[in-house]
């Protein structure tokens, strides 16, 4: 029975490698553990060991061949027995160690290089605080040191925003929090800290008996939405600005554009036009394309526009990068592609993380106007309502126009009322006279 020897993957990312050298030739007998070939990868040449025993029947790839795909057969082994020898890897665990530490045998253990401290088990060695749990029952991610520092300072870890890997609270976050709020004395009987974290009551406490509902477990997306929206709504001083836009001109332009694009199969939606107008407006009012950070206000070089897409079980905000540099057709194509893959949950993290400005559109659901919650760390989010025919007053007379209401929610730390208003004015002008978008 022949066994095929396959090109091994020597690292998780390896897709192909060079077969540098064969250590065996046809007819050689090998046993498990014998080096049969050398493969060149990343920074090193690695040896390939036989896993089975047998005789080399054929070498399928010549030495020096580059770009051999992982899992491609490189040689064939004819097994001595029908059954290949079992893999021996991991079988070389040490004999159980009944002896024990020989160091005890040294009649007089030599002293360490210098006298060591005979400190008692006090101070920092006292009990480590247990891993805290947040209101929602999730374990709070925090480094051991951050945990200990927060406890010593009487700070609630759940209230500290983590800046470490995966949102982990690290020492720098606790230091920053401590800088902001003086450490509350930990002595019992002290007045409760002014802003005690909100304790969620159970549904039963709130009068909804168990058994009267089905409990849908919180998945990762729901937890992320809950945490990010709570943090944002609670911590960011936000305000809405609302403006009405007449979009008859825009609709007419869209019809013309689509007629032109029809033969290419392309199509532009009102939302695509909104995205384009936002991109242009952000370029003209860069103060609205900014993020607050403790070190200063980040003035973004490009308009990376996140668009809220409802998907099963939640929503996600894929990003059109550098929308300010892109034409309408490209924005439309990207928006379609991103939304499609968002619904299929096939976005890569870099496609929905970041962004400098968000657009949420509930117009197609008939919503007239609404104010979204800021998508941190962006300075603004625009909520787009339905375009509908409404009575308008022109020159003292009633007239009918298609009107769309948009609301800009602003982070007041970055975008003041005047800046938000200026942005909306520019945006309104662009939407009401779409030709100006291309100038």
């Amino acid at each position, binding site marked *: 029975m022949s066994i095929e020897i396959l090109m091994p993957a020597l690292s998780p990312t390896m897709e192909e490698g*060079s077969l540098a050298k064969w250590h065996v030739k046809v007819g050689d007998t090998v046993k498990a553990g014998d080096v049969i070939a050398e493969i*060149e990868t*990343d*920074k*090193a*040449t690695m040896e390939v060991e036989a896993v089975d025993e047998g005789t080399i029947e054929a070498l399928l790839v010549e030495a020096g061949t580059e770009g051999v795909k992982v899992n491609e057969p490189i040689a064939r082994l004819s097994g001595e027995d029908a059954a290949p020898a079992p893999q021996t890897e991991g079988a070389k665990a040490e004999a159980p*160690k009944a002896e024990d*530490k*020989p*160091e*005890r045998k*040294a009649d007089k*253990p*030599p002293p*360490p*290089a*210098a006298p*060591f*401290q*005979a*400190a*008692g*088990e006090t*101070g*920092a*060695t006292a009990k*480590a605080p247990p891993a805290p749990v947040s209101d929602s029952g999730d374990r709070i991610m925090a*480094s*051991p*040191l*951050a945990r*200990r*520092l927060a406890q*010593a300072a009487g700070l609630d870890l759940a209230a500290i925003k983590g*800046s*470490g*890997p*995966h*949102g*982990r609270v*690290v*020492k*720098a*976050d606790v230091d920053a929090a401590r800088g902001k709020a003086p450490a509350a004395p930990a002595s019992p009987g002290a007045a409760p800290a002014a802003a005690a974290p909100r304790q969620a009551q159970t549904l039963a406490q709130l009068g909804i008996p168990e058994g009267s509902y089905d409990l849908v477990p919180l998945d990762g997306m729901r937890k992320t939405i809950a945490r990010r929206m709570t943090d944002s709504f609670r911590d960011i001083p936000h305000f809405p600005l609302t403006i009405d836009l007449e979009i008859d001109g825009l609709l007419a332009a869209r019809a013309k554009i689509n007629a032109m694009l029809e033969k290419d199969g392309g199509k532009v939606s009102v939302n695509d036009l909104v995205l384009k107008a936002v991109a242009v407006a952000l370029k003209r009012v860069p103060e609205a394309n900014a993020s607050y950070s403790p070190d200063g206000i980040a003035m973004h070089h490009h308009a990376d526009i996140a668009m809220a897409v409802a998907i099963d079980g939640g929503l996600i905000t894929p990003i059109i990068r550098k929308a300010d540099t892109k034409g309408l057709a490209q924005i439309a194509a990207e928006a379609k592609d991103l939304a499609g893959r968002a619904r299929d949950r096939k976005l890569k993290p*870099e496609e929905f*993380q*970041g962004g400098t400005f968000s657009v949420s559109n509930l117009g197609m659901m008939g919503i007239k106007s609404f104010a979204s919650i800021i998508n941190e760390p962006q300075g603004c989010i625009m909520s787009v309502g339905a375009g509908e025919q409404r009575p308008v007053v022109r020159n003292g007379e009633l007239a009918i126009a298609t009107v769309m209401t948009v609301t800009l929610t602003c982070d007041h730390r970055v975008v003041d009322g005047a800046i938000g208003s200026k942005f909306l004015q520019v945006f309104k002008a662009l939407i009401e006279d779409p030709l100006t978008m291309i100038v």
Partner: protein
Amino acid sequence: MSDFDLIVIGAGPGGYVAAIRASQLGLKTAIVERENLGGICLNWGCIPTKALLKSGEVYEQLSHLDAYGLSVTGRSFDFGKVVERSRGVARQLASGVAFLMKKHKIEVIEGTAKLEKAAGAPRVVVALKAGGNRTVTARSVILATGARARTIPAIGAVPDGERIWAYREALTPKTCPKTLVVIGSGAIGIEFASFYRALGAEVTVVEAVDRIMPVEDEEISKAAQKAFEKRGIKFRIGAKVSKVEKTKTGVAVAVEAGGKAEKLEAEVCIVAVGIAANTEDMGLEALGLKLDRGHVVADKHGGTNVPGLYAIGDVAGAPWLAHKAMHDGVHCVEHIAGVKAPTVTAPVPGCTYANPQVASVGLTEAAAKAAGYEVKVGRFPFKVNGKAIAASETEGFAKTVFDAKTGALLGAHMIGHEVTEMIQGYTIAMTMEGTEEDLFNTVFPHPTMSEAMHEAALDAFGKPLHI
């Protein structure tokens, strides 16, 4: 419209790793190299010295085989082969880097780069190795030009390739010198001293500061000096070199220590007195790039005062370590690409691959005290570690420095067999902001030399188990 998203100048460990990361993030990337892919690290530094040191270590081992109940007759070496092995290792790895550049579709431009002022990031004009010039532009340019051996012309400490060596000459000698003076006891000086001593050279190391390996913890310095002296290396510490002169038979190094003048005569002198950044002849002055004592001034993301120009690795200042350059490179590129990096304060470990090895991370005991910490210090000798005894590698110890108030591990210092392979344990603990409890609670495999690391943490809090 730029030719590339990113141009990296210099293909040392900082530069080529930055280029790979950039390519992974979808940036169209080119890398300019004037000499060898892999830079000093791979061709003239970290890697080939490790090859030499391994030869030295194995050869030295042969002289005390009786400790293992073994014997061998006719110990000898072929110096040419020892050196050639080291060069082969460097060649192999350099071709590995070429493969990586190809794999990641990074354009390698062979030549010497000069920067010119442009509207965005500086324009890069490459005097091609093959002849002619090529001008390329990119939205961002990373300077990763590294550094070279510092020389001191005023006292004659300038390599001549024959009697006075820097690391390059010391890596490719034709014969093994019988007598050798090494100026400088940092990692480079000590590694060469260790290698040449292992092959039988009479070695004297001159250090200006009052202890060898001055960046290490004082206890480590002391133990290292003892260990090297045991192997026959001589030291002159607190000694100032006033003149390096060639003689008929070799070199004479005039040294002053404690008011006494002395002339050290040897076949060869190795100058290992630090490094100087490569910032010359690249048009940096015309760009108005800010330098500080020869190094490019860069912020924590590698950004400089010139828009679109970044600097990483040795050219951007100490510590001059390949792994720091790689770390910088990845961070800088992720910053350029707009990847949001989490807050991580990563301490940079340092390793010296002499025999015995020295490895450390974080603050020394003295530096921690000077920074105002109340410290708890633990130590554990390999002399009483089971695996070390079994392997007859009992030299050295592990030392930990904790913040007494918070239990944070501030620093760790080790000397002994293969400690360079162990220091990452403490480094991970520090990077993840571990406390003494995390080290207490970690199960260290038995029997390993790493158990001494566990014990050194326990010892800092007065509860070591095996001593």
